[in-house]
């Protein structure tokens, strides 16, 4: 199976549980299991190749310009992790099937789980560190969803937030570190980076990159001082804890350290940082774990401790250390997942995980007892179980490691860690399963159904088998170790054996086990001391830190972003002006060539004066809203006249038609809005606004003046358009050719935006009309007297006569568009105006009844026609929207041109007609009262005006 598919399957499969849950929990579970099983089988198909020493790869260029490619490779290290992720994933899914109660949304849970699984598999198979970063962030996000799965629990939400904050911050640091690493090597491909050990370690950026990368790894793998998030993440459902904290999430940091081991390890900085962080974490985590009463909390701190152990082993920088680390990753995943699941079983059956309320369960839950005891003894490092082997290798490595120039330091600390580890393991077994049976369990405990205990039982098999026959695992461990160390070191000669002779490690191991047992015997007094001793609570510190950040951010946010739109607008204008002024006064533009100015003509002055006067009046009289609309009309007219004057006939046509529909639109809106704007702002505010506006105006005027009075600093690209418009696009109107050909893709996007805008308006209108607004609109009285003839005779006749003429003009403008001013945009607007006049003159009901095609359909047809025209180019092997044209002659007519661009322009035309009409129609619908009597005859006199007279008239009739 392709590596792409292995990574992609969980992501695609994440859709399934959410869908299948409708078919029942069993269907949902089966679908999830099948997805993971398929991916696992796909992975196994590569096993022979991996064992042969080959590295299957899959490469796909994604953003080669950024160095971001979807390059995947499957070396033994990646294979081991992917196997753990998918294999333990299968067991977790099976376990979760029985663990989740009916109140839990199983579909949602499995969807998150598969998302997380996909992200994890992505991390371990990535051959590109940028791709790896993407998957890394995805694990942070999906684990956030998993940890906070029980949204009703505040602990769950807080734990999820804390995990996200810590691992997310680490992820940011990691991005920086990875970018530096890629910058040093000049490639973001892991397989390239891994061969550049000397280049990387000689670089001055090595230490910063190392610090940032380690920050990412330490936060993810809960290394001291970032260990505190992991215990709080235990608020998650137990399957999540078992999955995240045994085989996956927290191992991602270890994976990355192992992955980058060949380039980063071996320097003093690496050893100091990684080995000492690992040691501290190992001892601290193990010590705290002893005193945790909650089974999951104990396991959480023990996980922290074991992660520290592995980190320490990677940190020593020796090949033997790497081998021990690989072996312990395998062993820890098996016994820790089994332990988490056992803890979940106890919780599930006894309804508590508190060891003070447990004890004596060995007869009540014999199967769980057996599983948990074997796994726990393995964790303690008891011979004949797999935990013993790797722990002894760790002690062996510790005996040979010197940190900070003190020979015995590491030996003593490592032994202490192993001792604490034995103590909490013994306590877990003793305080849960041994002791007297009690009669006050919250629920009567008994072994669960096989579906629940089988998954952990399966995990016990490797615990025992590897423990008894370590040689079985040796070839694979050595293969993976070889992948970790790469060419940076020789594969160690050591073998995986139970009996190495009387070595220092054996002595240390014995001290640890005996010491652990002794420690447990004095647990009660020790625990009292622990409870009484003051100790820093990480969650409080974290909460205070977050509160301090929020306290810092809040005044700034409140000051800038207080919900007042006018404030944002003012801030934005001032910022733009300030930044622009800075550029103006400090920037350089190169040589400025003055441009001869055009002479001023009297007509131009007249138009300018009208524009300025209209704008001035508009601002002065802006409270009278109807007057504002009229003045807007003058301004729009002057702008289009200006366009025409300065050689832009297309713009003039468009501007004037848009002007018409905009004013109609605003008139329709004004029908519902108040007619005047109240006077609310005081003199100070108006002065302030005037100053801001003045600054903006001066800035805009100054900028355009400096542009207009100088030549182009670099030659414009327009010559290309002018030269190729006819040759390439077959049109004389360069503006139109640019729209439908050179920049056709832009136009395509723009008509889609226009269509979406119209649909938004339609949807909002629908929403408004379905709520209380509808009642309000129906009860709305008319504030002012209405004209007697709502549909004046003259206007109705005129618009109906004009309709075909305007349509003809529209068709004409459309057809000539390619070679003369015009085209789809203008034609669309003109036709829309023709239709709108019918609505205005003859009434909504009358016009709507004669309208056969829904405007949504017209928009859709327009976008489709434009798109299909573009796609048509594919059929002849050309890129999207390449146009073709030719000249044809149909006998009675003259020779004329046909261009595919015309099809595209037709799409533009339809989309514009549809969008404009749908917007205006939606506005009109607000005013139209469904169900009220409307005359079918457009020219009728409005009957409601005569209502006051009606009684009198009726009386008269009666009288007669």
């Amino acid at each position, binding site marked *: 199976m392709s590596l792409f598919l292995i990574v992609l399957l969980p992501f695609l499969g994440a859709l399934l549980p959410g869908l299948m849950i409708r078919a029942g929990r069993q269907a949902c579970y089966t679908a999830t299991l099948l997805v993971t099983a398929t991916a696992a089988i796909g992975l196994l198909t590569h096993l022979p190749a991996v064992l042969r020493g080959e590295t299957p790869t899959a490469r796909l260029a994604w953003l080669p310009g950024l160095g971001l490619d979807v390059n995947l490779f499957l070396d033994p290290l990646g294979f081991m992790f992917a196997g753990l992720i998918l294999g333990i994933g299968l067991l977790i899914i099976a376990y979760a099937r029985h663990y989740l109660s009916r109140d839990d949304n199983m579909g949602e849970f499995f969807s998150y789980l598969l998302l997380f699984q996909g992200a994890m598999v992505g991390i371990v198979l990535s051959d590109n560190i940028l791709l790896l970063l993407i998957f890394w962030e995805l694990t942070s996000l999906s684990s956030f969803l998993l940890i906070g799965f029980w949204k009703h629990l505040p602990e769950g939400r807080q734990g999820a937030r804390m995990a996200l904050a810590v691992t997310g911050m680490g992820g940011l640091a990691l991005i920086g570190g990875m970018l530096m690493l890629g910058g040093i090597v000049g490639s973001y491909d892991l397989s390239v980076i891994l061969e550049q050990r000397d280049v990387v370690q000689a670089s001055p950026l090595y230490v910063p990159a190392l610090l940032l990368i380690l920050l990412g790894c330490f936060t993810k793998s809960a290394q001291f001082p970032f260990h505190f998030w992991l215990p709080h993440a235990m608020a998650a459902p137990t399957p999540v804890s078992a999955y995240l904290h045994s085989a996956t999430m927290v191992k991602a940091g270890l994976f990355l350290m192992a992955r980058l081991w060949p380039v980063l390890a071996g320097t003093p900085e690496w050893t100091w940082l990684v080995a000492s962080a690992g040691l501290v974490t190992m001892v601290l985590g193990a010590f705290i774990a002893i005193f945790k009463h909650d089974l999951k909390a104990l396991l959480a701190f023990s996980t922290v401790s074991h992660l520290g152990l592995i980190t320490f082993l990677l940190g020593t920088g020796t090949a033997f250390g790497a081998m021990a680390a690989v072996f312990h990753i395998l062993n820890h995943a098996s016994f820790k997942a089994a332990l988490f699941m056992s803890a979940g079983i106890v919780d599930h059956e006894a309804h508590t995980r508190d060891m003070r309320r447990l004890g004596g369960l060995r007869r009540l839950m014999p199967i769980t007892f057996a599983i948990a005891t074997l796994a726990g003894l393995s964790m303690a490092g008891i011979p004949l179980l797999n935990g013993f082997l790797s722990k002894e290798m760790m002690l062996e490595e510790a005996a040979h490691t010197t940190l900070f120039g003190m020979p015995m330091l590491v030996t003593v600390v490592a032994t202490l860690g192993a001792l604490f580890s034995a103590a909490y393991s013994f306590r877990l077994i003793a305080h849960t399963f041994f002791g007297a049976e009690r009669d006050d369990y919250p629920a009567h405990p008994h072994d669960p159904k096989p579906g629940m205990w089988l998954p952990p039982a399966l995990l016990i098999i490797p615990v025992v088998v590897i423990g008894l026959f370590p040689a079985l695992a040796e070839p694979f461990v050595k293969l993976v170790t070889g992948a970790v160390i790469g060419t940076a070191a020789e594969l160690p000669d050591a073998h995986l054996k139970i009996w190495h002779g009387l070595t220092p490690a054996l002595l240390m191991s014995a001290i640890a086990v005996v010491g652990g047992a002794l420690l447990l015997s004095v647990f009660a007094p020790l625990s009292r001391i622990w409870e009484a001793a003051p100790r820093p609570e990480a969650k409080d510190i974290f909460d205070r830190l977050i509160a301090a950040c929020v306290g810092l951010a809040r005044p700034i946010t409140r000051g800038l972003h207080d919900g007042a*739109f006018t404030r944002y*607008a003012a801030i934005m204008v001032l910022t733009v002006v300030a930044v622009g002024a800075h550029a103006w006064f400090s920037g350089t533009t190169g040589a400025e060539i003055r441009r001869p100015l055009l002479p001023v003509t009297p007509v131009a002055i007249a138009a300018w004066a009208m*524009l300025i006067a209209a704008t001035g009046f508009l601002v002065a009289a802006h409270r009278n809203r109807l007057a504002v609309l009229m003045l807007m009309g003058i301004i729009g007219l002057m702008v289009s006249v200006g366009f025409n004057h300065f050689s832009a006939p297309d713009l003039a046509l468009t501007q004037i038609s848009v002007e018409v529909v905009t004013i109609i639109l605003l008139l329709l809106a004004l029908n519902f809005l108040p007619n005047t704007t109240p006077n609310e702002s005081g003199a100070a505010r108006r002065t302030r606004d005037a100053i801001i506006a003045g600054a903006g105006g001066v800035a805009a005027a100054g900028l355009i003046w400096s542009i207009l009075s100088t030549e182009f600093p670099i030659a414009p*690209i327009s010559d290309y358009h002018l030269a190729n418009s006819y040759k390439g696009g077959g049109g004389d109107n360069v503006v139109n050719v640019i729209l439908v050909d050179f920049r056709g893709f832009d136009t395509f996007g723009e008509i889609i935006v*226009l269509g979406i805008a119209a649909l938004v308006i339609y949807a909002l209108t629908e929403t408004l009309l379905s709520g209380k607004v509808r009642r*309000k609109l129906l009860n709305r009285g008319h504030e002012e007297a209405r004209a007697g003839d709502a549909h004046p005779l003259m206007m109705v006749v005129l618009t109906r006569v004009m309709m075909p003429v305007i349509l003809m003009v529209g068709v004409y403008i459309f057809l000539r568009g390619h070679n003369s001013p015009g085209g789809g945009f203008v034609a669309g607007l003109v036709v829309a105006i023709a239709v709108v006049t019918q609505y205005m003159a003859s009434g909504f009901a009358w016009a709507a009844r004669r309208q056969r095609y829904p405007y949504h359909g017209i928009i859709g047809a327009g976008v489709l026609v434009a798109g299909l025209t573009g796609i048509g180019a594919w059929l002849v092997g050309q890129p999207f929207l390449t146009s073709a044209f030719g000249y044809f002659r149909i006998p009675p007519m003259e020779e004329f041109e046909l261009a595919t661009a015309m099809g595209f322009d037709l799409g533009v035309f339809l989309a514009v007609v549809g969008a404009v009409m749908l917007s205006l129609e939606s506005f009109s619908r607000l005013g139209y009262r469904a169900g009220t009597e409307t005359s079918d005859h457009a020219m009728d006199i409005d009957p409601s005006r005569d209502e006051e007279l009606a009684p009198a008239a009726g009386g008269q009739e009666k009288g007669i």
Partner: protein
Amino acid sequence: MELLIASAVGVLTAAGIYMVLRLRTFPVIIGTSLLSYAVNVFLFASGRLAMDAPPVLRDGAERYTDPLPQALVLTAIVISFGMTAVVVIIALGSWLSADDDLVDRPAEPRETAQ
């Protein structure tokens, strides 16, 4: 002539900003419309001004004005209609459903110590 265009752009911009800073929806919408006039003219003029030189290819024509800004502004004009319409329906919705056409959210009382 350039001075006329520059000053017109400046006046339209200033009027637009002033109207955008008003407190009710309707003047704000008018303000954005004025600003879009200003921006469209600005963009158009950045191709420099020329008279009697439309970018329509003809025999014997010596010069053409820059067609590219025109094409960009043409779609901008149409899009700005669409955007105005969307803003207007939002303003209408707020007025019809809440009887309120203020653009500022009322200042919330300062939070005291948590």
